[in-house]
């Protein structure tokens, strides 16, 4: 089987491990996309093609899977992805203010990535954390009961030198 040059041996290994769970290779499509995104932050056209070949499925079919899920990124994203809830509880509790503050601080609109490549801001549906509304998620970490001031502090921490892991 010809492998696209884009996938690393480690990625391939992880994807093969997923394939082993299913009678059909293409059943590992979602997990495969997650593996690629874990290693690269997003899924490029080249990676998509290489993954499709590895899973022996038409690239368009894999694209259908990739684009169905809003958390598989088909465009480059910043180092930190901020998912700001826009569902009803958070909206009532002032998510629009948080949104405004985020946009202001980062100089971007929702759906965009800051010029320094550090932050991407995306709206998302309910994060299942409504009792702590308004909420957002940064890099798989949830934050609740937010105010614009807390947003400032969060961003300060992330922007501080060596603060990436905060």
């Amino acid at each position, binding site marked *: 089987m*010809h492998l696209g040059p884009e996938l690393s041996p480690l990625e391939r290994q992880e994807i093969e491990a997923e394939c082993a769970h299913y009678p059909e290779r293409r059943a590992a499509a979602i997990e495969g996309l997650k593996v690629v995104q874990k290693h690269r932050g997003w899924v490029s056209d080249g990676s998509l093609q290489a993954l499709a070949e590895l899973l022996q499925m*038409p*690239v*368009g*079919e894999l*694209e*259908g899977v990739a*684009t*169905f899920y*809003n958390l598989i990124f088909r465009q480059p994203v910043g180092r930190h992805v901020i998912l700001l809830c826009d569902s009803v509880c958070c909206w009532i509790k002032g998510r629009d203010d948080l949104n405004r503050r985020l946009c202001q601080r980062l100089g971007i609109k929702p759906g965009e990535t800051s010029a320094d490549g550090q932050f991407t801001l995306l709206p998302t549906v309910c994060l299942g954390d409504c009792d702590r509304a308004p909420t957002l998620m940064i890099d798989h970490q949830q934050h609740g009961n937010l105010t614009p001031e807390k947003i400032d502090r969060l961003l300060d921490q992330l922007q501080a030198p060596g603060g990436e892991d905060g």
Partner: protein
Amino acid sequence: MPRIRIDGQAYEVKEGLNLLQACLGLGLNLPYFCWHPALGSVGACRQCALLQYRDEEDRQGRLVMGCMTAVADGQILSLKADKARHFRAGVIEALMTNHPHDCPVCEEGGECHLQDMTVMSGHHHRRYRGRKRTFVNQDLGPFINHEMNRCITCYRCLRFYRDYAGGEDLHALASRNHTYFGRASDGPLESEFAGNLVEVCPTGVFTDKPLSQSYTRKWDLQHAPSICVHCSLGCNISPGERYGRLKRVQNRYHHGINGYFLCDRGRFGFGHVNHPERPQQPLVRENGRLRPVAASEGLAELARRLETTERWIGIGSPRATLESNLALRELVGADHFFTGLGSHPNALNRALLELLRLPGVNTPSLREIEACDALLLLGEDITQSAPRMALSVRQAVRGAGRDRAAALNIPPWQAQSVQIAGQNARHPLFISHVTATRLDPIAEATYRASPQEQAALAFAVAHCLCPEAPAPEGLDEQAQSLAEKIAEALLHAKRPLIVTGPSSGALPLVEAAGQVARALLNARPAEACPPALIPVFAECNSLGLTLLTQDAAEADLEQAFALSEHGPVGAIILENDLFRRAPGPLVQGFLERLTQRIVIDSIPSPTLNAADLVLPATSFAESQGTLINNEGRAQPLFPVHALHAERRNSWQWLAAVAGHRALKGFASPADALATCVTAAPELAPLSQALPSAAHPFTRLAVPRMPHRNSGRTAAGANLDVREDQQPQDHDSCLTFSMEGAPAPWLSRQSGIGARLPFSWYPGWNSNQAVHKFKDAVDGPLRGGESGMRLDLVCRDNGWHRPLPVDTEAQGLLAVVQPAIFGGEELSNLAAPVFQRAALPCLRIHPDDAPAWSVADGDRVLVRGASAATELPLRVDPRVARGIALLPPTCPPLGTGPTRVSLRSLGSDPLIATDHPEPTDG
């Protein structure tokens, strides 16, 4: 039969249907989008809602989806209840929020199912004021436009393209309001059946690109019930004309043949009709030049030449109608009539005809093929040579899934459940061919070998089934075990099928196909369903021509060539380019020896260029006549538009000659047909098509134009402000007019189904109106289908003895690989089809390259017994060893099975850079 009540009216309906099928079958207007008669129900659009009541007391009722609810005895239903009507209108309103409302510039307008359903549902006031999403469209190649903004997400396109037709390059991308139906990137849709999306999509997302380049609305097109002439299957088509130009071809329902779908060659291959170099009027050679003359003068020339030359040869054609071939035979005498094919293709055609005669063996229609459960394709790549049959074979293979679902009591129309229950279950399909085919991915096993080896495989299958059938010699172990596996599958199948054809050029292979069927018949219990065997032929009337000439002592082109060597003789060449039939030098010599060369044809060709007199023939779109398809079904062609003054049906030119050569029995199309009836005993059933029987009504004729046809009186106003009389049609039950029998009246007449020029019914402007002309949505047209099966005489020629495979032969065996695009004479003149053609090249197996010192990407001189040609070479591991696989456009290099030698002429600049190879197989 379940009894149900709809809006107070009691009905009896067929068991096993869903409510939508039942309602449409009863003639009730229940709107729908995602359901399709051939694709089943998925309940995606919620358009087909109706109200179901628990019992007599229930005043509330509950909404059910018609397409997802099985009929059951005692159901009480309402289509008209306010709740149901409002729901349906609401669904459309929601679907339309993102629709651009661009009907005036949409090619679908006027035949749009979305328009029809919107009007039917009563949603006529737009309230949505928000933003609409907009998409970037894709270039999907020369056949189809893409305008995604019009999509209503019914998923029909995907279900047809991927599930039904096996396409792999159309997908649903993204989700919700952003769901996008397209390819991963721009590029031609790969499926040979992509053109059906034009009709399958209920909106204007996928539309006919060649039509839109010279656009006319359906209501301004003139149509006729016609037959596709691009292969031997005889799919029923509805061509549309305006201003003397053929604008498009749409599907015309035939229950047994094409059903709802055509192939893309048939849909987009009509360009020869409008070809600029088509002979428009008679041409007479003077001082070496062809001079156009009036029809009357052309006719006088014909008569004069017939008077002055004593001996005549008539050369017929497998793409000319029965009437035209017969008229020529009558004119020159049966002894001097030749098929226009070499001895080898003639022998193949006769052998294929013998297959149809095998006693006890069933000749299946395409619909019957779909129900077969073990299939053997022998030496014929049907996707390329009889494309619509490949679509039926795909349905047969998918049948295993349908069977699994049926065993679980899942109704066949529950498309999603059937698919889940079936998973990837497939009925066994075995493909034996000289190279890879498009059906290989769904095959149980493939065998790639020379035609002789394939014949040996088939003989071995027959021997496995029935020891009386002589076994072939020298089959290797692998082939032997494959033969056993195939025999096993065919033996135990409910409905086994064998398909073969002429493409491999090997007589033994055709005979071996018959042998398998015969052995199968012997091996299976008497009460089992008889085995099915279906040949495909090379051209639309190959079988008709073979039936006319099967008993002739001399009918081969070589014999015509020989005749021309003995004394002066003239020839009338009918709709045939001899340079496609025999090696160039032989044809050249023949044409030079003739004292007179009269060519009657509708397309330009090198043969036509050599003529002394050219008589312009009608294309299929202006012809009236009969074609006989691969099953032995005779079908009538009717002219779409009135004859161009200077053109005639070929037989009409010949019939117009007076004097001692005057033809009797060709005074009119009906007269010509009556003459055909008596031409051969097996043609007798054609008498059913004679006017008295076929015109069940005399009061009103069938209009060729929809009743809104506009501007008729203004057409031609730039030339003369006068209202021309419409052309008259005295030869059929059709009129060149929008006046005539109204559709609802027609829909109730028996015998009319086969004569419908287009589908239209009040409220149903798209092709989906066809169910109004049926008694049941899954049944045949009311009052019968086009054409009739001939009663072929049964004949059993006993067992064939396999010939030993010739291993000593020198050179590579030339095999011409057919191609759906770029392989057939007429559709090659259609620009969009030509654009889809692959670069013609020679293919050989890598093991064969060293012996000839040739390499991939070389330009190669291919030399046969009588002619040579130059081609780029592809070294391709998918090709069987010992084979030179030639492109379909390659001129004949010899007569009969030909061995060729190769010589490299250095590397080919074109192939080396521009055309990367596919990597599959």
